[in-house]
């Protein structure tokens, strides 16, 4: 199972722990990658607000790079998945548009023929690695720990562009949480918005959205939250303290990137997963994981 790894901006910028933890776990799942080191930003839906064709050209350029390698693309960011998945659908279904966008790539001697698929790590784990294989790799049972899935908008909507999860009742991330031995928290906020796209200019609104989702997860008994989108992670982790103040709640809920949760369950040392980079300490969660680790060894008579 080999993919062209599209890192996106955040995993190479403000959430380097996402890239680190991805590289620490994919080998164990049988996923090989070639990193697209010359790929740009996908536009994140923002470039497209000013320049739709320019934004499509950014995605097409990445697709052409992967096409040259003869590989499909693996994304590790929900936002990249939504934007690039949508761009791919548009380019594949509209030959005139593809031609127009390819003209923008011509000076680089690149052209996209429309043969590449774009898949998020979450989807690859569920559909291609398989949940049984994942469960086989689990070394540390997370036991009765409760983890709240936070899907993020772009991996779910518009569902016509994505076609993976049911946009009203998605379950891919819930299934992965179960496969690593933990219990998913069911709460309405799991499909809502983290507020990140407007957090710099409309902080009050974004924090109200963000805080409500975190609080709902916490009230549901969550020991941690997990997300397949680093932009959600920035909102939920970096802004969590402010969100708590805004809504008058003590949140203090560790937020994991998807590959960090996989890594913890597969027994990858916390240091290799970049957990120390979070603003909300993951230590209380790690202690709970460690307790269960010890209990399990006791059961087996190893301690």
């Amino acid at each position, binding site marked *: 199972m080999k993919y062209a790894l599209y890192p996106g901006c955040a995993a190479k910028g*403000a959430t380097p722990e996402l890239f680190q933890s991805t590289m620490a776990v994919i080998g164990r799942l049988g996923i090989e990658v070639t990193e697209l080191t010359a790929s*740009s930003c996908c536009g994140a839906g923002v470039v497209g607000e000013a320049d739709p064709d320019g934004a499509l050209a950014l995605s097409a350029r990445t697709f052409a790079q992967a096409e040259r390698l003869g590989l499909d693309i693996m994304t590790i960011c929900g936002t990249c998945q939504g934007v690039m998945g949508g761009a791919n659908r548009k380019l594949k279904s509209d030959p005139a548009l593809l031609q127009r966008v390819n003209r923008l790539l011509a000076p680089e001697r690149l052209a996209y023929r429309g043969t590449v698929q774009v898949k998020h790590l979450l989807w690859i784990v569920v559909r291609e690695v398989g949940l049984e294989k994942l469960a086989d790799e689990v070394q540390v049972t997370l036991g009765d720990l409760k983890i709240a899935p936070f899907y993020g908008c772009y991996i779910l909507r518009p569902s016509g562009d994505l076609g993976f999860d049911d946009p009203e*009742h998605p379950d891919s991330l819930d299934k992965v949480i179960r496969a690593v031995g933990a219990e998913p928290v069911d709460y309405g906020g799991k499909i809502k918005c983290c507020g990140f796209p*407007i957090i710099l*200019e409309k902080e009050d609104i974004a924090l109200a959205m963000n805080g409500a989702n975190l609080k709902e997860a916490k009230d549901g008994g969550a020991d941690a939250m997990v997300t397949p989108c680093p932009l959600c992670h920035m909102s939920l982790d970096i802004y969590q303290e402010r969100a708590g103040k805004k809504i008058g709640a003590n949140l203090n809920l560790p937020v994991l990137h998807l590959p960090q949760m996989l890594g913890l369950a597969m027994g990858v040392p916390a240091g290799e997963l970049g957990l120390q980079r979070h603003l909300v300490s993951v230590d209380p969660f790690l202690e709970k994981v460690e307790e269960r680790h010890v209990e399990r060894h006791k059961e087996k008579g190893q301690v």
Partner: protein
Amino acid sequence: MRLAFTIQRYHPELDAAPHDETYRLDVARGMTVLDALIRIKNEQDGRLTFRYSCRSAICGSCSMTINGGEKLACRTSVRREWERHGGLIVGPLRHLPVLKDLSVDMGSFWGKVRAIEPWLRDSGRQAAGGALAAGASRFHNVDACIMCGACVAACTVHEVDKGFLGPAALAKAYRFVADARESGPARTSRLAALQGPTGMWDCTRCNFCVEVCPKDVQPMEAIIRLRREAIESGHTGTGGARHVVGFRDLIARFGRLNEALMPLKVIGWSLRKFLRVLPLGVRMLLKGKVPSPLHSSMDGPERVRALLERRR
């Protein structure tokens, strides 16, 4: 097949809080949720209150929450909902005041549609061929809107800020901005009026409105076009516009987003805003979460710069 329908009931003058009631009904092939509600009202509980009229997805009266999503009851198949969700849970549109049971007060919705003045203003210019030639294709399907309110009920910003104009009204505003028959000054004042709080820059692009719209209006796409029109008309001073322009500039310079510089692009020269982001910036720096403001993380960013330059 006999199915259970769980329906939220609420009579504000009698009930302290909404509660669910379950009704069992023999379901015939091809039955819609509206058909089922009408039968429940006729056969089991005459007090059950809901709005409907045309029964054919034209009037927009029967929008409600069905299995967690905003839908028109008249075009939602009972069987398909059952297959998809394993049950039927019906409630009123969310985040709007409930009048009784499944009927909500649409007053704030209509108020916002009226607020954007949904009529041609100061239309001195007469386009040959009328509205169609004036650019109906540019209206981006907004004319298909049946004002059912599903997008507003689903809007994640409206949920936390009831003042937000919301997807339906903003999409309608775009339709008039795109109408070539309206004069330049009228168009300018329309765009100017939507720059402030509760206007076009409050949308997070969460795509809920696109997902739930029964008429494929894609309100969010209309909001994005509205933003583009605003930037092209010189409304570049708001945080939202600065975000879009600054983001594009950073991609043209680094190829990828530089998170060290992005906040500065949005806040500009405001000391107050700078002091607001500074503490988080310092904490991120200490955690190794602030990339170098001098270097790109990709190979060959100059090629991306050249690509985006070709677009200008």
